[in-house]
């Protein structure tokens, strides 16, 4: 089993869907205690990359190593991954507590109810909201609960797919603080987003374009909004004549 706190190393990872290349030769390292933002225009391969990291999509080429182990479908390392998508990944008819308890038990967490209560308190959903069906929650509350669900088994790798989508400014600020907290907790944090402002908290910025990695840089102390925007605009601007080639 991989050591806790190990880096995730991608080596020439590629994915082909029905003859169409979605991802090609992506090599990078996502280190623990760091937030990596994966950016790129629509169709750049961001969601495919996240799917591969989550083990739900099998790569057509290359490999991912997490410490000494290979990460892939059927890997036991799947139990150490937490995933927050733009959909909450929850059961609307179950209460917040029931959702968390269910997932905690499926992961084998020892005291599932206590863990659920602690996480609900952390994300600000204790008391009345904890016993309300998730379908009655606002978008922001659902995203809080989704984060609690992703953390319920204390994962070493946290994946975020457009987590700030449809969040109001308060929700976006809360999310940025939570991302920072997860970085401090020593997790590998990978954030896929279109929202350059949400990516400002990142220490590492990876930019994909047409399935290829075109930018990968890490800056101690974080990038900041301006640097993220500058890198994104420089690396995703169409080359002369490229638009015509489609």
């Amino acid at each position, binding site marked *: 089993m991989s050591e806790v706190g190990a880096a995730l190393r991608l080596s020439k990872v590629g994915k082909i869907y029905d003859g169409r290349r979605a991802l090609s030769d992506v090599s990078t390292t996502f280190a623990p205690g760091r937030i990596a933002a994966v950016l790129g225009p629509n169709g750049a391969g961001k969601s495919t990359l996240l799917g591969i990291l989550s083990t739900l999509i*099998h790569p057509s080429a290359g490999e991912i190593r997490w410490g000494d182990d290979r990460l892939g479908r059927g890997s036991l390392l799947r139990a150490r991954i937490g995933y927050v*998508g733009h*959909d909450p990944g929850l059961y609307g008819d179950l209460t917040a507590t029931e959702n968390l308890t269910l997932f905690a038990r499926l992961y*084998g967490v020892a005291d599932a109810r206590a863990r659920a209560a602690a996480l609900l308190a952390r994300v600000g959903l204790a008391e009345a909201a904890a016993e309300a069906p998730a379908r009655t929650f606002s978008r922001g509350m659902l995203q809080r609960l989704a984060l609690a669900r992703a953390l319920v088994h204390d994962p070493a790798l946290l994946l975020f797919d457009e987590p700030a989508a449809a969040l109001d400014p308060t929700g976006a600020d809360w999310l940025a603080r939570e991302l920072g907290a997860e970085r*401090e907790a020593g*997790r590998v944090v990978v954030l896929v987003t279109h929202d350059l402002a949400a990516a400002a908290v990142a220490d590492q910025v990876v930019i994909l374009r047409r399935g290829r990695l075109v930018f990968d840089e890490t800056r101690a102390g974080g990038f900041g909004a301006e640097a993220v925007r500058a890198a994104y605009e420089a690396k995703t601007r169409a080359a002369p004549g490229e638009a015509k080639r489609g």
Partner: protein
Amino acid sequence: MAEAGAGAPPPGFWRQALRIAAKDLAIEWRSREVLATMTFLAVVVVLIFSFAFVIEGTRPPAPVVAGIMWVALVVAGTVGLARAFDRERDGEAIRSLLLTPAPRAAIYLGKLGATVVLMAITEVVLTALAGVLFSASLGAVLGRVALLLALGTIGFAAAGCTFSAALLRARGRDALLATLLYPIIVPIVIAGARGTTQLIDPISPDFDGARFWTQFLFALDVLFVTAGLWAFEPIVSGD
């Protein structure tokens, strides 16, 4: 730096399957949406056929009663199957489930178990209604009829869960589910209806014949459950 991701060993296979089944039943207990629809449809089918086939003062032939019961079961079961997987699709809950260490086979068996329980509850109502409306002589053979229904339900739900999972993200999946599922489950319906006919025939029940159909249903169950366990992983992975 705090240590993250100190993994605990995941629970055993059957415990995972039971948790997933219990989750589906807890959701249904709260909404009663699927059970109410299934039972309503089964009752409506039986009532419609009873108006068509029952002549006052006479008892309809055993094959008619058995056929009505199995058609009602299939119609109600199809609705239950479609809705059971809708809940996984809503909010992408299935993704969270697939990311847990629960084996895909345990997820499949959990979904199958919950579907069988819901169909069994509908069958209790269905059997009682058929007994009353058609004056069917069920009393002496209730255990054998229940065994036939249980085996037929397992086979139907096993095939249905596999197809429902395959159609999770398909457009028009309700129509597609019936179109794909019904040709596959024809042997289950034939075996169930034939076996039930032989059991409830008031003049000359054929227990040996019914035993053959019971064994045939058991063999179909083994086939459909095995196929479902084998196919579920590639179906839900589907990349």
